[in-house]
């Protein structure tokens, strides 16, 4: 059931085109599991709603975005993970460009466990460099950033997003991770 939900979300997420009416954003950045176990993330998102986009830079403006992110994280001796997570972000932009908000994501993670040996029936060991496990993950994060289009006229935002991830299945149900994401958002279709 969880796998079907993931596939439905994945299929729904790209079902929009780059629209002149709704801003579309490309984002890329660093993502670190427990901060120091490093990785990269890229994503595409679209603004679904804004409280008053024309007032950006004059009054606080709220917006809602949805999109998909992919991330690869290298935790040397534990696992390398690939994550695909459709997500929804709520962002509040202040007149000075400061942004804050929240993000929720639900998706899929594949953990590649390094240097795995497994006994076969003959009693010898076969080696697998990419054995691993599949998981459903849910993430919740707090976003802090700066919208550079307001004061500096750049179609960019910079952000940092600490987030909490719950991963299942795991021994006795689920396990938790703390991650920090930091990156740049670029608006693709700025008018």
């Amino acid at each position, binding site marked *: 059931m969880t796998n079907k939900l993931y596939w439905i979300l994945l299929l729904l997420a790209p079902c929009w085109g780059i629209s002149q009416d709704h801003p579309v954003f490309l984002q890329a950045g660093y993502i670190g599991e427990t901060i120091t176990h490093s990785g990269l993330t890229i994503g595409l998102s679209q603004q679904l709603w804004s409280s008053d986009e024309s007032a950006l830079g004059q009054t606080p403006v709220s917006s809602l975005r949805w999109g998909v992110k992919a991330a690869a994280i290298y935790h040397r*001796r*534990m696992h390398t993970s690939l994550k695909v997570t459709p997500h929804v972000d709520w962002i509040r932009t202040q007149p000075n460009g400061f942004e804050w908000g929240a993000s929720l994501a639900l998706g899929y993670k594949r953990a*590649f466990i390094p240097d795995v040996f497994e006994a076969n029936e003959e009693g010898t060991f076969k080696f697998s460099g990419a054995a691993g496990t599949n998981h459903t993950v849910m993430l919740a994060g707090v976003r802090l950033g700066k919208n550079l289009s307001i004061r500096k006229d750049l179609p960019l935002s910079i952000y940092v997003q600490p987030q909490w991830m719950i991963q299942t299945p795991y021994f006795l149900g689920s*396990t938790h991770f703390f991650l920090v994401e930091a990156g740049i958002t670029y608006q693709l279709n700025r008018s």
Partner: protein
Amino acid sequence: MNSYFSYFIIFLMGLMAACQPNVQPSPQANDYFHVKTADAFLPVWVRGNTSSNKILLYIAGGPGGSGIDIAKVDYQRWKETLEQDYAIAYYDQRGTGNNQGTFDLSSVTLSQYTSDIQQIVQLLRDQYKEAEIYLMGHSFGGYLVYHYLHEYGQEELVAGSIALNAPASTDADPERWSYRRSYLQGIAQELVAHPEDSSHWQSALSWLEAYPEIATDEEKRQWNQFVEVAVVEADRPITISEVLGVVFFSPYNYFSAYAYGKLEQVEQQMFQEGYQSRMIEKLDRIDQRILLMTGRFDDIAPPEEMTVILDQLSSTDKELIIIPDAGHDLALDQPALFQTAIQGFVR
């Protein structure tokens, strides 16, 4: 776009599959891999002098202790001592540390734990073909050593076994409190001559005369109050830098290892398993080469019980060493004596 992504994944998997660890004998080996056994991926860290062709498979105590964590902080300070002479293989028991996989609590059993040890022993023999493998279990880990030898000892895959501070009885075994009573008797007689605690030990001796058996919870509490004065606390504080190293710079996800009460469930499960096993009655089936070690003031594996264990083992090559001025962490309490004893056994 989708086909490019697929090709990238295939390339990544191919790259990983091609990089089989190349374990060569080294005076400073630092090999890390995983053993997949019964749906669990158990991490194994082989560190130290693999050129010696002697590998000590360290089995952590607890239950619930993480061998990888112990290795990461070098809790026993073996990096500069024992690992100069031999290699030590640390691992996380199923359900502890950062185990990955799809196993559940039903596989956290004594039988599975000993089967996991067997898998790791076989893998170490497979990867380090010239090496002799020794088991070295501390406390609950030593209890697992007894179980392993009982189950797999006849296959003679290990050159010898070391049980450190390892009782064979559990709280459910009536023999345990007989050993503990004898322990209190022994240390009270030994320490009553010391002027600073003389009255305490005199009280203990008087109490023992009044209570020929220790059976009730109140009597057990009283026993604890007497023996705790003699307990030797290991002088090994964990530093902030070690904590930070474990949290941020280790093969660890702290939350998997320590948060959310998983270890308590593993501990309870293993205690329940132990209560039913009655290993104290099965020791005569163990006839492999074995070294028992305990501290004179170890109230969990008292010398009085270790003497009984030694007597019941069928091994012809067996020895019990009681380390003076040492408690339940004898490797920390008396590191030099500990190392000498190990060097004498792992020849």
